[in-house]
């Protein structure tokens, strides 16, 4: 039994998948996207099943397109990757399916962006439509700050930075009086990991000291949390909407549970360390099932 794995490099996650595969007697053909090239007339990947683990969204998306055109099953698929890798497309899919998500706007010039922000209200969150790890995500506390950020984006030159994507800032409820007195919000969100039609693990991520973001790769404190029926239902519904096999779904806890973002190449080092769940092993088990079908 063998599958291919496309990646930028062998990070902790990829090594954990390789270890899990080895212990189950499964071979893995590692394809580094840095040295990969394709003859579009001829398939040069011998395995039917391919696990896409490219950190680079664009490289991963295009390689998936090439491999799918040759008939390979790629996890996650091109459709899923395109929907999840572009936050605007994710929002549209979630809204269309009736899944709760933060109030979201987009604009294409700095002037219209300011008008949109007046409707969203401050504080608001600005995000690049493509990108992750909280990069270039900013909390716009007021109009002066928003103008400064928009001015900066206008001169940055990158076309994607001029697609202004905003979301309301979701205030999370205080859990006890101490938290309530300390501030009017407690920032915690959830990373929910789904494989097929199962939620295999979940963790809470806390806002860092001096940083409003709760990105685990940036050092946010994490805690293991038991999956509740509500979160399971919401996450699996979102996974179905984007037709994803293996996903990291970000859920916010405001007045209601909301799906914020969906990651199609999800990191899981923090999740595995926090929950003790062998995520790499569960991924390989899922791939084995797929290969047996």
């Amino acid at each position, binding site marked *: 039994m063998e599958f291919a794995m496309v990646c930028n*490099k062998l990070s902790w996650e990829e090594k954990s998948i390789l270890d899990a595969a080895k212990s189950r007697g499964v071979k893995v053909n590692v394809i580094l996207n840095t*040295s990969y090239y394709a003859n579009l007339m001829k398939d040069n990947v011998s395995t039917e099943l391919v696990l896409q683990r490219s*950190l680079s*969204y664009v490289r991963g998306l295009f390689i998936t397109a090439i491999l799918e055109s040759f008939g390979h099953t790629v996890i996650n698929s091109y459709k899923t990757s395109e929907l999840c890798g572009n936050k605007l497309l994710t929002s549209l899919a979630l809204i269309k399916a009736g899944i709760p998500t933060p109030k979201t706007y987009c604009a294409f010039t700095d002037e219209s962006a300011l008008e949109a922000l007046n409707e969203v209200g401050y504080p608001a969150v600005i995000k*690049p439509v*493509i990108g*992750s*790890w909280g*990069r270039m995500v900013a909390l716009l506390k007021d109009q002066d700050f928003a103008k400064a950020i928009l001015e900066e984006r206008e001169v940055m030159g990158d076309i994607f930075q001029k697609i202004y994507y905003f979301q309301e800032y979701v205030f999370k409820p205080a859990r006890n009086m101490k938290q309530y007195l300390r501030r009017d919000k407690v920032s915690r969100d959830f990373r929910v990991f789904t494989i097929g039609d199962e939620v295999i693990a979940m963790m809470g991520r806390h806002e860092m000291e001096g940083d409003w973001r709760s990105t685990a790769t940036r050092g946010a404190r994490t805690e293991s949390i038991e999956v509740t029926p509500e979160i399971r239902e919401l996450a699996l519904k979102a996974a179905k909407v984007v037709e994803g096999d293996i996903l990291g779904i970000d859920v916010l806890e405001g007045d209601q549970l909301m799906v914020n973002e969906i990651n199609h190449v999800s990191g899981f080092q923090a999740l595995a360390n926090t929950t003790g769940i062998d995520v790499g092993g569960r991924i390989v088990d899922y791939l084995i099932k797929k290969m047996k079908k």
Partner: protein
Amino acid sequence: MKATCPECYFEFEIDDNVMRGEIIECGDCGVELEVIDIKKDQAVLQKAESEDEDWGE
């Protein structure tokens, strides 16, 4: 296995089971290095790709 940092030329030993694509840190200058080839008992290293705008997980 032997390896040489292409940035500071520090020579050091790395795990014999190292694989192409693995990222290691130079024990001297601390730069992140990618194993791009393995020749007999020598790993060939180059400075690892830095994070790009579309990177994420």
